[in-house]
Every structure is written in C-alpha cells, then in structure tokens.
C-alpha cells in the first residue's frame, strides 16, 4: 500500500506501473484508491481501471471531493507475485500549473507491504533521514507525514540538524490522519542540514521544499532509511 499527497493547483500524474519487461507491459490485478483529509476522514474511493497506465490525481480528486486542502491519496495495488518479481513501484510527475519551477519526478512512498515476505529483507525502515543541499533560492522546508494504520495512532519524533545543534519535535498521528511539519530553514544562524524521522511504526513520509516567494514546490522526495 503506497500513498502520496495531492495539493490543488498542481499537475500530479502517477505512473501506476514503472517496471516493464521485454515482452509486455505488466498489469495490476486490482487497484483501489482512497482519499483522506487531514483529520483522517475518507473523502472518497474513486473507481479506477487497474490497466490504466497513468492516473491524473488532479482530475481524480476534483471528481471525488470539493475539498481544497491537502489530500492523502492511498493506492492499494494487488498483483500476481508470479508476474512481478517485486512490489510494483508507482512513480509520479508533479508540477504547479504555469509555474517556471522545474517539474518534479519522484517515487511514491511504499508504507504498508513495502517489504514482501518472500524478498527476505530484514532492514528496519521506520528510521529515516534526508540530507539537504543549499538551494539557489530561499525555500521553506517541511515534512508531510501520514498514518496508514487501521486502529492505533503512531508517535514519531522529528529531529532537525543545524551545524552541531539538534532540534526535536514530537508528533502523534491518528489512523489515516496526515500533517505538515514545518522545518525551520535556519537555527541560531546555521542552515538546515539534515532531518530525521523516528517513528514507532512506519509512516508515510515526504520531505518538501517550497519557494519562499511563490510557495511553489521545488522539492518533493521520500526520505532514506539509515539503519541498514
């Protein structure tokens, strides 16, 4: 089960199956899409064709809900293990309509089921980090976090690093809730260098950067597990 966030005003297209083999494009057995608001309320579950290559999230969200706030979009993809050697990856294209900012292309975050048992992986993936590079223009940074649990809330700690200083924030997300956690670009004169998320259980997580002047997204990426 993978998920991302949709914000109004953006072209946001999801390539449902990124992998292809030499003979044919692979297909999902089924694909369910669910939309949740920040408080965890289900906004809708639009029917989608699992054979469709690219989903237009803007059209999907607008056809399902009149909500204009950020929406968590959850993809529940089922597939034949005999066809896919690994869980199919979804990739996405993101660009604010009319913006001079470059388009963004990112891998959609796998949350539940990101490590199929047959693969045999043993790395933990609920400790994540991201190292920032200095952008060519002022940016506002934040984390977008979402909870895909069914029954219980998830606690997380967010640590930001500025030179030798560390700033901690704590957050608790109820099932299907999501939040944007602002990250100060500077602290005591030092620029933001790194962010870590330590969650009790794996959360949906993206690090985002927005242009300070226009608010356009210039960074939208998943974090990286650092405990190998």
């Amino acid at each position, binding site marked *: 089960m993978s998920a991302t966030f949709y914000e109004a005003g953006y072209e946001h297209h999801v390539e449902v199956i990124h992998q292809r083999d030499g003979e044919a494009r692979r297909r999902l057995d089924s694909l369910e899409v669910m939309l949740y608001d920040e408080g965890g309320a289900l906004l809708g579950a639009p029917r989608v064709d699992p054979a469709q290559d690219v989903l237009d999230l803007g059209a999907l969200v607008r056809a399902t809900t009149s909500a204009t706030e950020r929406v968590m979009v959850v993809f529940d993809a089922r597939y034949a293990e005999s066809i896919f050697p690994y869980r199919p990856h979804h990739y996405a294209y993101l660009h604010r309509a009319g913006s001079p900012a470059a388009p963004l292309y990112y891998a959609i975050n796998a*949350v539940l089921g*990101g490590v199929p048992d047959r693969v045999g992986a043993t790395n933990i993936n609920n400790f994540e980090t991201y190292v920032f590079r200095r952008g060519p223009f002022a940016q506002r940074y934040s984390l977008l976090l979402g909870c895909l649990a069914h029954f219980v809330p998830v606690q997380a700690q967010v640590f930001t690093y500025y030179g030798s200083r560390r700033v901690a924030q704590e957050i608790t997300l109820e099932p299907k809730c999501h939040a944007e956690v602002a990250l100060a670009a500077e602290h005591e004169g030092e620029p933001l260098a790194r962010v870590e998320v330590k969650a009790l259980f794996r959360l949906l997580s993206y690090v985002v950067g927005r242009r300070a002047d226009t608010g356009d997204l210039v960074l939208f990426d998943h974090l990286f597990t650092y405990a190998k």
Partner: protein
Amino acid sequence: MLLCYCTMLTVGELRAACRSGRWPLPGKENTGKLCTACVGDLLYCLRRFGVDASC
C-alpha cells in the same frame, strides 16, 4: 481486511488463529517485522483477541 501487506495476513485469519491457539500461523511468523507499518495494529489485534503480545 488485510492487516499485514508483507505476509498477506488478514484480521480474520489472525482472529481465528488466536481463538484456536494457533498463532503464529505457519508462513505468517514475520508479520509486523518487515515493513513495520502494521506493528501497532498487530499488537492491538493480538490484545483484543486475547494473546499476550508482550513477548
């Protein structure tokens, strides 16, 4: 309802296994240990189904 997408364990299977004293089911031993996203739900369900989840 699928509880663990890594081992494909459903809540119904977990409930039945707990009630018959057969948890962990063969092939489902890694539930909660892989992507970790379902650990909270797994512990919650085990407690609800009367299994000591502390060990």
